[in-house]
């Protein structure tokens, strides 16, 4: 799906006094169907990388291929943007039309899809995100989570093979966050590649691969278990780990024999040592 070779990017390449590179020598390869979470601080370059994935930005040096197409080639720009959809952070700043279904149709209209086919795709996409009942509503009367699902439907109507989520939940309340995340997870089950940019560790734990970025570089790349089991390193980066992982880590430091790969509350509760602790049978160092 994506492959980059020595991808570097700076925002003002012609500046005589150039600022540090926003992205430095990034080499990644993401396969179709993966669910990748990208973690990092503000300014670590994760949104900049996301904007490369659908050619909104192109590398200053190096190359990025999307489905074999070079993002620097202007002839492939529209093909790349059709195959890689993007959902942004602020739900209000990405809805174009004043009626929900018109907005969902917008992308497909831009691609020149025939009207009857657009109608089918719009209904289908709205159904997939559970918003069919709101088709004729006005977007500004919906909640944040609902608006984000409209944005997802708008991308789906373009029939993409990948959707990049750029901190889609940062401006939402917890229930809106859940709505958006479960929509993303469901789409991944249908074979759509999901790239989720976030700074919520719990959200990253749902992915099957986590990339950690710092200062424009990818410094960790692995499954959530591999990444989050490096508790000390993650905490040194100021990113932290999911709460159950952090608690398990503390207990392990206190001498309890708890698995280092715990990610969720359920896994935590299923751990043999935890069960013993709860029954009052466990002591440190056993």
């Amino acid at each position, binding site marked *: 799906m994506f492959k980059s070779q020595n991808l570097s990017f700076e925002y003002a390449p012609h500046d005589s006094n150039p600022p540090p590179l926003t992205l430095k020598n990034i080499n990644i390869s993401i396969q179709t169907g993966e669910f990748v979470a990208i973690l990092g601080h503000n300014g670590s370059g994760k949104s900049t990388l996301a904007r490369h994935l*659908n050619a*909104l930005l192109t590398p200053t040096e190096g190359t990025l291929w999307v489905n074999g197409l070079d993002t620097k080639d202007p002839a492939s720009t*529209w093909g790349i*943007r*059709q195959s890689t*959809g*993007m959902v*942004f952070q*602020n739900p*209000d*700043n*990405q*809805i*174009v*039309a*004043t*009626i929900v*279904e*018109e907005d969902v*149709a*917008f*992308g*497909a*209209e*831009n*691609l*020149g*899809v*025939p*009207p009857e086919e*657009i*109608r089918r795709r*719009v209904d289908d996409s709205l159904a997939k995100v559970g918003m069919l009942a709101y088709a004729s509503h*006005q*977007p*500004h*009367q919906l909640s944040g989570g609902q608006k984000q699902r409209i944005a997802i439907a*708008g*991308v789906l109507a*373009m029939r993409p093979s990948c959707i990049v989520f750029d901190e889609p939940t940062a401006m939402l309340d917890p229930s809106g966050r859940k709505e958006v995340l479960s929509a993303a997870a469901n789409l991944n089950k249908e074979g759509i590649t999901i790239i989720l940019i976030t700074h919520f560790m719990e959200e990253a734990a749902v992915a099957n691969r986590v990339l950690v970025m710092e200062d424009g570089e990818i410094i960790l790349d692995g499954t959530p278990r591999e990444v989050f089991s490096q508790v000390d390193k993650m905490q040194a980066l100021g990113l932290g780990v999911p709460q159950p992982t952090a608690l398990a880590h503390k207990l392990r430091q206190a001498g309890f024999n708890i698995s280092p790969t715990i990610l969720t509350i359920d896994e935590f509760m299923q751990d043999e040592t935890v069960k013993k602790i709860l029954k009052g049978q466990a002591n440190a160092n056993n």
Partner: protein
Amino acid sequence: MTRITVGNHYPTGSILHRTDPRVKLAGTVLYVTALLFVNNFLGFILAAVFIAALIKISKVPPRLIFRGLRMIFFMLVFAASINIFFTSGQNVLLHFGIIRITTEGLTLAAHMIARLVLIVTGTSMLTLTSTPIQLTDGIESGLRPLKVIKVPVHDIAMIMTIAMRSIPNLSEEMDKIMKAQKARGAELDTGSLTKRALSLVPILVPLFVSAFKWANELATAMEARCYRGDINRTRMKEMKMNAKDWAAAAIMLASVIAIAGTRWVI
């Protein structure tokens, strides 16, 4: 969540509401033009009957239409007085200093009032029976022939759509900024007029900044969804004239010709 409606669309589901917006747009333009031709009372009576019939068909409560008239009340009074007091004519009814009231002046004033009232009611029938979206789409598709002479019809329609989309956003943002300023002790609704006008500055500046930010992000989002202007673009809802629309167009055209034609009858 805010309850802002854009335009003054009043849905009743009447046949006039369901008529193709292009017919209504063209009808309104022709109707206003015809009113400019009218120079006798027969024409105005005909036009009034035509509008009354439309109001009846549309099922829009007449008080909504009169509300629109209230806004132009002062303009009517002003236009009428100028005509009454300053029209020169043969048949002087009253002479007082530079003021002369003549029969011609009175007739002219009456025509002026009738014309303005009929224009305003006619155009408000258009906005009351069509949503802003229908109007925009109607303009885009109705003006399509102008593309030949390089009028950016699509761009104009897109600008109108986005302007409508921005209204609830901006008003929400303004509300937020006003609350933030009030929380820090700004007095927005007390003091003299100048003081109140000046206290708007710290609201308008952040509002402008956020409007630009909004526009910038929306443009990125539109690009991400493959927007590139009018190139190879289709529409989900294509406007098609059905038999009823053609009939409505014919009736409108006939009425408009009749109204304008009164000029040559008497």
